[in-house]
């Protein structure tokens, strides 16, 4: 559980940085639609940034299946 929190905190920093925003208030239920700049053009570049920051690799359909930040956190946790 605490690892979830660590991942979420780090995600908050990385995603905020990526979109050049002051700290975003990302929670497990946040979706791409909640963040204005997070569009299809940026999507895979953000995924790449996350791969680098967490030192992991995603698969395409895994990425396509993420419905919210919670599912992303779960997937990162399994890979770490």
């Amino acid at each position, binding site marked *: 559980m605490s690892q979830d929190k660590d991942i979420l905190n780090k995600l908050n920093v990385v995603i905020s940085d990526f979109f050049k925003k002051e700290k975003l208030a990302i929670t497990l239920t946040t979706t791409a639609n909640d963040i204005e700049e997070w569009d299809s053009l940026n999507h895979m*570049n953000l995924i790449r940034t996350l791969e680098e920051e967490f030192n992991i690799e995603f698969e395409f359909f895994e990425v396509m299946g993420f419905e919210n930040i919670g599912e992303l956190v779960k997937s990162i946790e399994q890979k770490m």
Partner: protein
Amino acid sequence: MNWFPYISIFIFLVSLIVYYKTKLDGKDILITASIVLISILSWQSVLCVIALTAATTLLQKSKSKAWIGVIIHLGFLLSIYFLEERITFFKFGLSYYAIQNIGLLLLSIRNKPQEFKFKDLLFANAFFAKFVSGPILLPKEINALGQLSKFNPKNFTSGTNRIIYGIFKKIVLADNLHIITNTVFGNEEVEFKGITILIASILFTIEMYLNFSAYTDIALGVAKLFNVNLKENFKIPLRSSSVSEYWKKTHISLIDWLTQNFFYPISFQLRKYPKYGVVIGILTTFILSGLWHGLYAGFVVWGILNGIFLSTEYIGKKTGIKLPKSIGWLLTILFISFSNLFFVAKTWENSLNFTQQVFTIESWHFKWETDVFAVLGNGWYLEQQFQIGMILTLMLIFLIVEKNLEKMAKSSNFSIGFISILTLICFLIGNLNDGAEFIYMQF
């Protein structure tokens, strides 16, 4: 006499009664009604949609089979351009449901075998509200159509509002604008001044939006009468302050389909080269979007231009360039309208013809009254001045209050004012007899 509109309204009313007054399955009723309606248009198209839906159902079950399915669909799509017109009677709606099927088959190939039922797919492909011009659905959206529920008065009023709104947009705004744009784009052999062509292309951009979104309003409204929620295809795009915003709000279902099937896979594969990945993804997406409209040079140039605008904007944004909203809006409308010049020109000769006239210096020596107004108005007597003035004023008022009108059109409240005013304007100045076609029915 053309009986089709009367017969189709009759079938529509019968299916509405059967749908709500009997215990028969909703999908069965709508599929039957759709097949009857399409077969009046062309029985070959009915055979085609049934055959390709059956093929998709069978071939979704393994990777190698799904590839065969994709090839069959591409074969049908391409055959339209190489066969004589008297043989291609099967083509109604094909470009919409064929790529819907291809999307599903690609999912079988890339992810895992799919298990869609024939009946659900046939409904998603042939439902009469969406058969001729979409919206195109993604596999998960086909799933979401699910079981159809019974009578819901709220959906019934919002459906009715939406249909009337669509008819108003089509016969009052789009068809009247068509009279103006057609003076230029319907006479390719005549020489025009650059400014006349540019103004006509801006008006064409507005006309095309009104025409296609009117179709979508009617389609979504009709579907709503049967409690079916189809996907929105437009989100008031003409207020966009960037090209990327415009493409998030225009023909959404086609762009979503291309994004899922091409842009995402390409930008994922090339994610280690972020800028290149996105640019290659954008260009591929828009060239394919052009080709989807037809195998014409004009559509390809249109796609390439939009790809270039969007890529430039993307790179500009990444380097921190930010334009004021008003300038962004103006540039977006100008860029999109310029690209639409190739869209409306369709062939290479016409495209060259129009662009040469825009880019020659002599073409920019002009007199407003004789070279612009008299051309666009089909003459410049008091009558034409009145007509063009009325159409453009109405269009401007509409674009200004569009947000509010759309809210009322989607509302589930019955508003006698909204319905009676729109209907009245339709009868007063709508093109009831010689309206133009729905542009997107030809694709």
